């Protein structure tokens, strides 16, 4: 320790000039390090997707409600924020629509196949559309008196094996950037646990494929998927398309192996 240096007492002194110069250099070094590391950190981040959640910008949409594979509104009148004809419905926050639709039906009877008007927040990305029923049961604006339509028949089932990741479509197509992978894992678990349809994201030559995951008998199996959300997994089952969405029916026990 060099004793000849000027001695500094914080409560009394002006910083000695020898200290002052060294500290100036130190501050300069810290700024430089801060700037360089910021550039490196931001530049090398994984890019974000273009998906959109038009939060607070509610849209009114009219269409036929299908309950299979999950509540989907097949729309006939469009909104600029809706890309696809088959709009997957999700609840407010990290919830699915089960409770909301049950409440709507208490007052209006079975809504399956009925033409209805909903208000909600559109979510869109990669050619898919979702609608958050932001006002819960008040999201149902109108039920039309048309005759009930029978459901569209699904495409033939084929046996497939897919590799990819279980995602929650609300975050993935919506506001979360990123809405997949490890960073988002616990949030996706929360959403799938809350009833938002579990979707399997896999890739093929056409791009990404998004399949709603159901059990072998077409039932919801969200609870059995929670341990595998946001991990790289391979699943086998029957795949088909129903009401505009790809579906894969699996035996969840295969995931435990």
């Amino acid at each position: 320790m060099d004793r000849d240096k000027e001695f500094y007492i914080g409560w009394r002194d002006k910083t000695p000039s020898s200290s002052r110069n060294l500290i100036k250099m130190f501050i300069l070094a810290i700024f430089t390090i801060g700037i360089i590391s910021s550039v490196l950190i931001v530049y090398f981040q994984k890019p974000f997707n273009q998906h959109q959640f038009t939060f607070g910008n509610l849209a009114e949409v009219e269409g036929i409600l299908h309950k299979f594979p999950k509540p989907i509104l097949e729309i006939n009148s469009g909104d600029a924020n809706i890309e696809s004809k088959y709009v997957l419905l999700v609840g407010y926050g990290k919830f699915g629509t089960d409770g909301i639709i049950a409440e709507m039906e208490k007052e209006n009877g079975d809504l399956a196949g009925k033409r209805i008007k909903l208000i909600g927040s559109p979510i869109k990305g990669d050619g898919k559309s979702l609608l958050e029923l932001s006002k819960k049961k008040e999201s149902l604006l109108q039920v039309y008196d048309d005759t009930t339509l029978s459901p569209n028949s699904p495409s033939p089932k084929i046996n497939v094996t897919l590799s990819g990741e279980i995602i929650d479509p609300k975050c993935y197509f919506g506001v979360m950037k990123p809405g997949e992978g490890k960073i988002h894992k616990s949030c996706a678990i929360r959403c799938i646990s809350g009833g938002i349809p579990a979707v399997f994201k896999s890739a093929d030559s056409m791009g990404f494929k998004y399949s709603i995951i159901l059990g072998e008998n077409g039932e919801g199996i969200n609870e059995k998927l929670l341990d595998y959300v946001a991990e790289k997994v391979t699943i086998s089952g029957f795949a088909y398309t129903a009401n505009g969405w790809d579906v894969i029916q699996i035996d969840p026990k295969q995931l435990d192996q």
Partner: protein
Amino acid sequence: MVIIGNPFFNNNINVLMGINYNAVQWNKNKKTYDIILWVFILFIMAFMMSLQVIFHPTITLETSIIRTTAITAFLLLHIILMIGPLCRLDQRFLPLLYNRRHLGVSMFFLALIHGLFCIIQFHSLGDVSPLVSLFTSNGDYDSFSDFPFQVLGFLALIILFIMAATSHDFWLKNLGPHMWKFLHMMVYFAYILIIVHILTGALQYESNSIYVLLIAVGFVSISSLHLYAGIKANKTDLTIVNSHNKSLHFVCTVEEIQDDCAKTFSYNNEDIAIFKYNDQLSAVSNICKHQMGPLGEGKIIDGCITCPWHGYQYLPENGQSPPPFNEKIKTYQLMLIENQIWVDVIPRPEGTTITPVKILQDGSR
């Protein structure tokens, strides 16, 4: 002892030395410190947010805030951890140490914003309460790559909170310096938690190796600085070369100590500083009562031993802070044989007066 212009009744030192407490006692040095600190914080955050918009225009504001606050806080943590060893290596860095607690509290606030935004984004509005979700949604506690990394961040945030909340001298006084020091040494544990939080979290998603490299550079810089400062400090600790009786030890010669400075010496658990001033010698504990700062690296100013860290003062002949202060440190008996300084390593009770040893012209007593 002559006290000339010693501002004992200056409010800054009154507060500093525990006579009364204000929320924060400002002085010009602290203000300059905080201005530079916040210019740095705001500049880095604004710079990083602009880069996000340029390179990744589809980023959301929430993600940008989460990332920017985390990175800035982590950068500040590196600075905080470097200040200690830098000051031991070169006293000219001491002004950085003087107000390090504001650096710590600022870092905690940034980390808190990061944590709150994450808890709101990832865990709120769900089927269980956010805190339950934090601990239970991801149950892969037995895996590294899938580990619930947010729990680690949360624990680190709790440590930082305890440190920020107890950073005021009020707590130092009430917890006692040893407990306080222990709490504040937990920052190293928090640092490790945060590194593992990043490795098992963000870096499981971001795969570019630049991130591991940056963390490694930070870690190596901090550990090597600590190691180097530790080795240097050990070298300056004197070894015992001779003993008269069980407790009397030879330390050094009079010429080896510069005027108004000290030579330090450790024996078993005794950390002793021997000061030379006005042609006399006194020995006191090397450990400051405030935050255990190294008194032997301080100086005699206005007749008082002055701690290099925050300027606490003690009279060399009795180890007492001059009135109205009441801090006391241990004192030690010295003996001068020709020009050799010998110390009795058995301490006298804190604040015991011991007549200073006079250095005569020919170097002997």
